[in-house]
């Protein structure tokens, strides 16, 4: 059994906006959400800026007792899932719940809880650790919370492949729905990387920019960390049409590869193989692809390698490429989900979000990067790239919803 897979719900909480609509409005306007960090003391790091969910209070979204059980990253996962499901109009009946999946990605799980408790232990000399530290820290906390909320009893798990986590998660959920393993899925990723210990570790890697994230720009100085979550509701196309759901777009292909090369240096060949695999899985011609939401971290190594891989795959075909990380930051295990949301919105709205903060072209990244201003374009097919440390790559292919596929004009 092979089915087409529709995305009928999108939920987002991230720096550019705490809802799907607010997130898209920022991206559409080319507004970067990179600002001075508030979650750690000023002056404590070499890099002062990040893409935080500013003024986030868990109590705006959930009861205090519920919030106590969850690390910030799992709270984000739950919030995004609730928006996606509510917006989709999808009702999880007990029978359907048993035939549904939840697959989430996260790179580092509940490390803000771990950092806080370990600080008490090592620095303050407190000899006891909070009893919820283990369930708060576990990387699958977001998945478990979403499964409990909706009574989802089928395959539920978490994928952790660093910066490709969410793309791997969405891809696997997509394949399960496509192949009839489940009848619907909630998939995405979440991340909350802002604790002093974790940020210090990033500082030591010397790849975080002291200013901002300028993907593909000649004067780029590195990535900017971000946080948040995005979740998608995936349904078989026929079921989505039958209930008259708003269809944001279709997931049409998924490809994965490993560089089998270096712990941190990317390899164009691995990235190219993941893109080719995804295109082949979708059965789409190169010339039909109008947009690539790039991994585009803004590091020297990624952007050159990714540009090389795109040219290797697309040759002389013209394709617009943008990195929305310039606006929502690099949200690590949530990145692929935020970018999937951005790509689906781009297809639905016929508007390519720009690469913000762009100053000057780099000949080593010779791509059409849609600098600073969104571009109207009627695109039918789009790619979203995610390339992780450790050389693990994942690429999704999205397709614009058919004109007759659904109704509803929510933006």
């Amino acid at each position, binding site marked *: 059994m092979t089915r087409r897979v529709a995305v009928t719900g999108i939920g987002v909480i991230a720096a550019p906006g705490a809802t799907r609509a607010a997130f898209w409005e920022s991206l559409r306007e080319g507004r970067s959400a990179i600002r001075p960090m508030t979650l750690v003391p000023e002056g404590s790091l*070499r890099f002062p800026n990040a893409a935080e969910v500013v003024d986030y209070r868990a109590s705006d979204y959930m009861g205090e007792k519920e919030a106590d059980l969850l690390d910030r990253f799992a709270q984000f996962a739950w919030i995004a899932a609730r928006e996606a499901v509510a917006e989709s109009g999808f009702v999880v009946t007990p029978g359907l719940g048993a035939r549904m999946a939840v697959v989430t990605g996260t790179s580092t799980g509940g490390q803000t809880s771990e950092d806080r408790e370990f600080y008490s232990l090592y620095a303050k000399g407190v000899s006891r650790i909070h009893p919820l530290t283990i369930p708060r820290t576990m990387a699958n906390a977001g998945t478990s919370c979403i499964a409990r909320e909706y009574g989802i009893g089928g395959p539920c798990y978490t994928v952790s492949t660093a910066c490709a986590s969410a793309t791997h998660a969405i891809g696997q959920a997509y394949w399960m729905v496509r192949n009839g393993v489940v009848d619907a899925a909630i998939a995405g990723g979440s991340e909350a990387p802002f604790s002093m210990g974790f940020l210090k570790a990033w500082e*030591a*890697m*010397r790849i975080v920019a*002291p200013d901002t994230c300028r993907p593909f720009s000649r004067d780029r*100085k*590195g990535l900017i960390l971000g946080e948040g979550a995005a979740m998608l509701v995936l349904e078989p196309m026929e079921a989505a049409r039958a209930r008259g759901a708003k269809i944001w777009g279709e997931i049409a292909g998924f490809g994965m590869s490993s560089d089998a090369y*270096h*712990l*941190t*240096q990317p390899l164009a060949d691995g990235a190219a193989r993941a893109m080719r695999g995804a295109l082949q899985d979708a059965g789409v011609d190169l010339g039909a692809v109008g947009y690539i939401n790039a991994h585009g971290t803004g590091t020297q*190594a990624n952007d050159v390698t990714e540009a090389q891989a795109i040219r290797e795959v697309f040759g002389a075909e013209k394709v617009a490429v943008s990195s929305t990380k310039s606006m929502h930051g690099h949200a690590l295990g949530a990145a692929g989900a935020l970018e999937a949301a951005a790509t689906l919105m781009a297809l639905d709205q016929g508007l390519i979000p720009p690469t913000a903060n762009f100053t000057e072209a780099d000949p080593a990244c010779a791509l059409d990067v849609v600098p600073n201003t969104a571009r109207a374009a009627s695109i039918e097919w789009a790619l979203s790239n995610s390339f992780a440390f450790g050389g693990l790559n994942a690429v999704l292919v999205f397709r614009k919803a058919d004109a007759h596929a659904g109704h509803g004009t929510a933006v």
Partner: protein
Amino acid sequence: MSDQLTASVIEVIAKTQHLPAESITLDKTFAELKIDSLDGMNILFAVESEFDISIPDEQAAAIKSVREMVEGIEKLVAAKEAAPLG
């Protein structure tokens, strides 16, 4: 360039890279020593601890040889010693 400082830097590189100290000389580039960007970060971390200095990212990115590293550290150590106390 002080011999003592050079010897200390070579010792740090040898230790972090698990290389015999004799194989590391001032004129070797990191490429010749098969030191890649990740190894470079490890060395910088060890050097910062050893000499109690902080090497800015941009300066760090420009260091491609043992000599450049020793020269860079020498300047930072001198600047630290010249700084007023308190």
